[in-house]
């Protein structure tokens, strides 16, 4: 069942097209990653979904509610963390959670118990008593995540949730998000590829406002990034290069070094079929091979390849 549907969603700021005809369907219970370079349209898309920005074209639905500017009916289903969460510096962290809970008309006893749980979840139990004005950027980010969860939303929209966190904090937040997806559909935007790769089930890559691809991460790897074979030799000379180039299945060779050890990365036409042929050819040619490994591509390579292709086309 699709909990989020976008049909031709567009947003223009003057002459600048920030979001261009976004078609998107997200299933309930998915941890969905919005990936893209700066200015790709990630924040714009999230702001439209939460009702803070008006689409100039297209329509969207979240939990069956049509997305409209300042729609309180829509917002009841959503928890939202903006890119740079802003708070009242005179409030304490706990007071802010109480305040947002009351805005969602949650009974006070329930707000209190949820605030306790959420402050513990984001590691602010003690700091919750302090004024937000004294919080660091990372603490504000954590409080931002807690306030987005106060209404136990069906859909959680997080704009760069890990941007201000240290590595340990990032890991904790990502683990929390993984647990939350059992009850909530989460959409997080990020330009930290490893974060998306670590927790997301599905990803959409945006560039210059356009959706380049939407796919499950595994499918994306299989579809867009061809595996490479990494070969490590004692030394590489022209004879080795020449012999490898002669192997029929070899498409491209990249040469690099890891420390002092020379490495060849080889792209073949069909990684499954050519895996054996390549190894047999190397063994037959009697090259001084130290290591032979098939490297699985990561999201970063997919991303760079897709965004790079787009930029070349434009």
């Amino acid at each position, binding site marked *: 069942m699709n909990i989020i549907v976008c049909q031709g969603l567009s947003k223009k700021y003057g002459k600048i097209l920030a979001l261009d005809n976004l078609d998107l369907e997200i299933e309930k219970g998915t941890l969905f990653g919005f990936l893209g370079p700066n200015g790709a349209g990630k924040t714009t898309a999230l*702001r439209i979904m*939460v*009702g*803070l*920005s*008006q689409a100039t074209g297209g329509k969207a639905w979240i939990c069956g509610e049509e997305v409209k*500017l*300042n729609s*309180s009916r829509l*917002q*009841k289903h*959503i928890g*939202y963390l*903006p890119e*740079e*969460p*802003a*708070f*009242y510096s*005179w409030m304490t962290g706990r007071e802010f959670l109480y*305040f*947002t809970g*009351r*805005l*969602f*008309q949650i009974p006070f006893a329930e707000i209190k118990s949820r605030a306790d749980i959420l402050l513990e979840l984001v590691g602010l139990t003690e700091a919750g008593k302090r004024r937000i004005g004294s919080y660091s950027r990372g603490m504000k980010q954590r409080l931002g995540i807690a*306030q987005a969860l106060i*209404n136990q939303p069906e859909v959680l929209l997080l704009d760069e949730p890990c941007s201000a966190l240290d590595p340990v904090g990032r890991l904790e937040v990502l683990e929390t998000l993984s647990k939350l997806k059992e009850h909530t559909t989460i959409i997080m935007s990020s330009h930290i590829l490893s974060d998306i790769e670590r927790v997301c089930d599905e990803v959409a890559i945006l560039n210059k406002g356009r959706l380049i691809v939407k796919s499950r991460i595994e499918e994306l790897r299989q579809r867009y990034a061809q595996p490479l074979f990494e070969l490590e030799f004692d030394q590489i000379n022209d004879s080795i290069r020449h012999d490898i180039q002669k192997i029929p299945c070899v498409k491209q060779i990249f040469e690099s070094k890891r420390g002092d050890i020379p490495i060849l990365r080889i792209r073949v036409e069909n990684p499954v079929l050519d895996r054996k042929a390549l190894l047999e050819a190397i063994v037959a040619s009697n090259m001084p091979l130290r290591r032979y490994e098939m490297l699985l591509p990561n999201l970063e390579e997919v991303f760079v390849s897709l965004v790079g292709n787009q930029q070349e086309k434009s």
Partner: protein
Amino acid sequence: MHYFVLLSKEIKENFRTYKFLIVVAVLLVFGIGTPLMIKFLPEILILSGEEIPITLPALGAKDAIQSYISNLSQVGLLLVVLISMGAVAQERERRTAAMILSKSAGPGAFILAKMTAISIMIIAGLLLGAIGFYFYTSILLGPVDPVKFTFVNLLSMYYLLFCLSVTLMFSSLFKSQLAAAGLSLLILIGLAALSGIPALSKFVPGALMGWATNLINGGNEGTTQALITCGVLMLLSLLAGWQVLKRTEI
């Protein structure tokens, strides 16, 4: 429901950021300071070392009330604009408005809560200032008619709340506090200047302060038209502010 949650936040904010204290203190100082100034003006002039003797007519309670009305229509207006120019604009600029308005709180409740909380501050300040003025004037300058003085204060309060609604509208319209303040002052001073035009003098909000002065001078003629105009403009300003926020991307 959202209105009461937001109102409670606004009131707490006004106390914790000392806004309430400042507004009440300023209006109290004006309330107490006016009769003191009237009473001791001759002595102040002598102490200032003026060589040319200035003969002042004997000033009494009526003069103090006139000065009080004049202060409220000028300094009061400025105070209202200063405390409310950032009410919405600053929240938009700091992006706290986006946090609130993404949580089911409608822009109507948002602006109405601000209007109520600032009104409470102004009314409390006016009340304390008026009490201070009444006692000091009664002691130093002679008796003050409590009924007329209450009416003067009610008219002033009504006028200042109108100024507040106009400033809130401009504060909703702009992200810049200065732009909101500048346009509010321009419109409010412009409207006050219109009371000089005989055909309009009975209708413009500034006529309320003229009514208050007239009352102190013994006249009974009031301008109920100005009361109605002021009420309608106040309502329209709030509606405009609400509609602007409803249609604006925060």
